[in-house]
């Protein structure tokens, strides 16, 4: 009975967004569309929450386990808050005439389609299905990034499209290789692509094939996760697309991609004679961290700035998972959660800021804490949170990563610390210019405090996590951390 409820929840998670997407595609009135969008997201959020109480098992296509359950809830939570945020945001875009109602219809439909794709990717138990879902998510986001139809929006969309499809192609090759490795052991057919069964048999797979597969998967899904040197699409896509999409991209899609990589990392760990994926991931992570740290300094576009911050933090997570061990893995998982909450909150703030200032150029935004206290301090809080300052939750994960790393691999901790400090310094430099000093340029009235609720909620969640983590979450993290080795 219980698990039936669970299956119901899972089907809802997939059916509601899909249905909503179709419905919204046919719905001309954008206000209603925005409401419907938020409503659908809310329903799927509730559905995902029921998974807390009901543990549906797994079949060859879908499954819910400790690893993806909280990601699913997080996914639907953020997509819900973002839809609420976008309702206010998009209305303003209409007033300024950057978008037309026709665009909005498309936008809302695509939004739900994206939610569907990400839910599917998280729920998938079948590596092929996982791949299909992520490809779908890519296509949808490409279309949304280009929605403004400006020259540079198309430019960004195109860049994203080409690099994204290449990544997908590589990921597919990796998936095929995994199947080829599994097929002699587990015979033909679907079971040989079901993740949980792969995991049980992974020890018998041919290590060489697994190695090859992992490299393709790492590069393929790593492109989606924005790891340097595969990151090139990420900053432009964040900067040129609508801000809600930037929030979803940074907060959720990157997580999904990293989630896929981790699934395969588990397979690698399960096979003793395969090469250890840790050093590879740690190296890529450090590279991304340092690179982003240097790139902050020169950024002139506020959204691109925070896009690079996403690269930095994906780097930190990848590094943590690469280090492995209970502490670092726990830290990585915690960091995933905290980062998606914080970063989306930051993008909410940034969206409003670019609206009230009428620009995204950092050099023309000053003294926000004086002119728009809510937005200004919200941004300051968000940046401090993302920079790993207490009392916010990111501090805990960075604490665990750095200290455990130094205890085990001092020479790896050194570049890590340098990168963290560098990123903090350069990001803070930008923040000072934005939040403090004499205000100048256009100052449209800020949004109503109500519309800042999503941002507030995220920040409060992160704040609470800094002080106290709920027991079940910790339990999940620890069991997954054990699986991740």
């Amino acid at each position, binding site marked *: 009975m219980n698990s039936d409820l669970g299956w119901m929840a899972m089907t809802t998670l997939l059916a509601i967004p899909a249905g909503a997407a179709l419905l919204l595609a046919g719905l001309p009135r954008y206000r209603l569309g925005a409401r419907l969008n938020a409503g659908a997201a809310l329903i799927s959020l509730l559905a995902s929450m029921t998974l807390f109480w009901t543990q549906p098992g797994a079949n060859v296509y879908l499954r819910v386990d400790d690893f993806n359950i909280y990601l699913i809830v997080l996914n639907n939570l953020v997509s819900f808050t973002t839809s609420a945020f976008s309702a206010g945001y998009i209305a303003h875009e209409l007033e300024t005439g950057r978008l037309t109602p026709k665009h909005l219809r498309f936008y809302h439909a695509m939004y739900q389609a994206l939610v569907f794709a990400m839910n599917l990717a998280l729920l998938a138990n079948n590596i092929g299905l996982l791949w299909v879902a992520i490809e779908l998510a890519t296509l949808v986001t490409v279309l949304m990034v280009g929605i403004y139809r400006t020259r540079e929006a198309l430019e960004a969309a195109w860049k994203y499209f080409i690099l994204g499809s290449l990544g997908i192609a590589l990921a597919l090759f990796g998936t095929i290789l995994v199947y080829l490795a599994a097929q002699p052991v587990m015979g033909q057919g679907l079971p040989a692509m079901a993740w949980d069964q792969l995991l049980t048999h992974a020890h018998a797979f041919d290590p060489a094939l697994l190695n090859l597969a992992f490299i393709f998967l790492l590069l393929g899904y790593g492109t989606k996760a924005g790891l340097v040197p595969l990151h090139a699409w990420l900053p432009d896509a964040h900067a040129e697309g609508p801000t809600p999409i930037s929030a979803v991209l940074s907060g959720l899609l990157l997580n999904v991609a990293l989630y896929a990589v981790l699934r395969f990392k588990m397979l690698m760990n399960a096979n003793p004679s395969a090469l250890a994926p840790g050093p590879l991931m740690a190296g890529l992570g450090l590279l991304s961290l340092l690179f982003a740290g240097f790139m902050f300094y020169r950024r002139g576009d506020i959204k691109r700035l925070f896009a690079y911050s996403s690269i930095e933090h994906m780097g930190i997570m990848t590094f943590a998972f690469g280090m492995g061990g209970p502490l670092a893995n726990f830290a990585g998982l915690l960091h995933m959660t905290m980062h998606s909450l914080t970063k989306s909150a930051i993008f909410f703030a940034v969206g409003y800021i670019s609206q009230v200032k009428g620009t995204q150029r950092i050099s023309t935004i000053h003294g926000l804490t004086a002119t728009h206290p809510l937005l200004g301090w919200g941004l300051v809080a968000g940046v401090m949170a993302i920079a790993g300052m207490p009392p916010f939750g990111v501090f805990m994960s960075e604490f*665990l990563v750095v200290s455990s790393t130094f205890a085990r691999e001092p020479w790896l901790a050194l570049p890590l610390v340098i990168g963290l400090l560098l990123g903090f310094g350069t990001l803070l430099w930008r923040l000072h210019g934005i939040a403090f*000093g004499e205000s100048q340029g256009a100052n449209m009235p800020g949004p109503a405090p109500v519309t800042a609720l999503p941002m507030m909620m995220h920040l409060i969640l992160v704040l609470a996590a800094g002080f106290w983590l709920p027991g079940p979450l910790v339990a999940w993290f620890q069991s997954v951390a054990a699986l991740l080795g």
Partner: protein
Amino acid sequence: MPLPLLLSLSMILLAIGLYAILASRRASCSRQIYGISLVICVILLGMALTHLLNAAAPVTLTLPLGLPWLGAHFRLDALSAFFLIVVNLGGAVASLFALGYGQHEPAPGRVLPFYPAFLADMNLVLLADDAFTFLFAWEFMSLSSWALVMAHHREPANARAGYLYLVMACLGTLALLLAFGLLAGANGGYDFATIRTVEMTPGLAALALILALIGTGSKAGLVPLHVWLPLAHPAAPSHVSALMSGVMTKVAVYGFIRIVFDLLGEPVAWWWGGLVLALGGITAVLGVLYALMQHDLKRLLAYHTVENIGIIFIGLGLALAFQSNQMYASAALALTAALFHVLNHSLFKSLLFMGTGAVLTATGERDMERLGGLIHPMPWTALAFLIGAAAISALPPLNGFVSEWLTFQAILLTPELPQWLLKFLAPAAGALLALSAALAAACFVKAFGITFLGRPRSPAAAKAQETDRYSLAALFSLAALCLLAGILPGLVVDGLSPAVGLLNGGAQLPAQQSQPWLTLVPVADVKSSYNGLLVLLFMALSGIFAAVSIHRFASNSVRRSPAWDCGFPNASPAAQYTAGSFAQPIRRVFGSVVFQAREHVTMPPPGDGRAAQFAVQLRDPVWDCGYAPLTAAIIKISTKLNYLQYLTIRQYLSLVFGALVLLLLGIALWR
């Protein structure tokens, strides 16, 4: 069970910070916030005092917060009790001062929410008993003080100060993070109780020591990590400057003591002491020399904080050196000196910063070159400031002298040390200490003389008014404490001894109350003794004797007339000595070496009406050699890397391609 109460009081402080966010627009809010802070600080102070004075056993408490599997550990022992006294004394007086001073705050909304939070964080740092809680509170402290520094964010200088401050704080935190990672080991035994038990190899222990030095030194202002301090402390409102300079740096010292003396346990190598000693000596002299070159009053005080931190670290270095040779009696003396100076500096530095705050509200000026003659309009502030200045210049019978005297006595015990390097280092440190003391006296003759004496150099200074009574109460309570600690040092030393014993394997100084006339006898009365009470008594007696007899038997009449000045009466106030000209001889003697001080005089030819120009140019050696190249390198690299933002898609594709081929080659050649 005091610990829950302490914690809940800190929580209340945080809570009223939140309340201030909502209420800061109301005028009454400032009074409320500072009043509550005052009350809470006084309660905390009382509890810490009782715990220290009746040498209670440590109490611990664990809350289900922070790291899930660890929880938040808290502990109150003699050391933390002593530092709690320092912190909450400073906090209470600052709040009292702010009851008056806070009324002049232009942007209360940017001060009131963070002020109580700042106090709470400092208390939490002292109570924390596991690495996570410690660093959490530590960094939160940096964050709230950063917000206070940014209170007046419209001045670009303040913004720069805040930026530099937070980056350096982050550096320090990361260093401490590494240190704790080392101490806790790979499987993360983060609570201090576990850390105390682990045995470390000498190499790792040394690494931890150096990391702790970087981490706490960057917050305390140890040269060469001091660059942020003289910028950030003055930028904040004056009562906050008092807290940052007088109290927060002490929290940093606490962190060092806790990690090195308590967690690391016995110092394994003698050179630890040497390292800390040398750093302390250099810091002391450089700090005071920097201070002498300043004419911004608050910045001068901030640099003096650097100097005093150096003195404290000299004491700590000596203690380490003694401990590494199992000379615990001597180590006890050095530790007592260091802790005593911690208390003293928190007293007079807060006093001086608040006096400066009073001057600032009265005149709106921080630049000494535009002040002067303030002793006439504001005599009480002048008196309090004078006492503080005399105390920080280590003049008997005030408290500053006692702790430096104790430090000297500790240095006099160093010949027993077996290591040669220490034998050479100790007297050199003594010379540096003496030099810094003498220069400090010069510096505060300048600070007080130029600011309060002479004739006003600007209309603002001429129109000054005496400050309000809250501020005066705060100033004089501190001044009284300076005097008391100076004439009754024995009692303070006895109060410190539990903390010293905790850090020193139980060895303490002999109890001082039993001595006749409350004399201070650190080692043995044949060696050395000092009695502030009698010195004060004798001075008072002889001074009064002289005054009375002269006024009784000789003339006591007074005539007023213009100053004689070798026959140039009534020269304009511009003819007075300024801060710059007062420092000129010392600048000639020391500055030309340390700061490459250059003086440019452009004198117009006779008959030319134009004013002569005089310019002094100083260079900061630390910044020039350390920080400037670093920032230049970062900018250069980021410029180079920035081209990666502008590649073509084809080039991006080739990046991916290259990565793929590289990895394939990797696994092809893996075996």
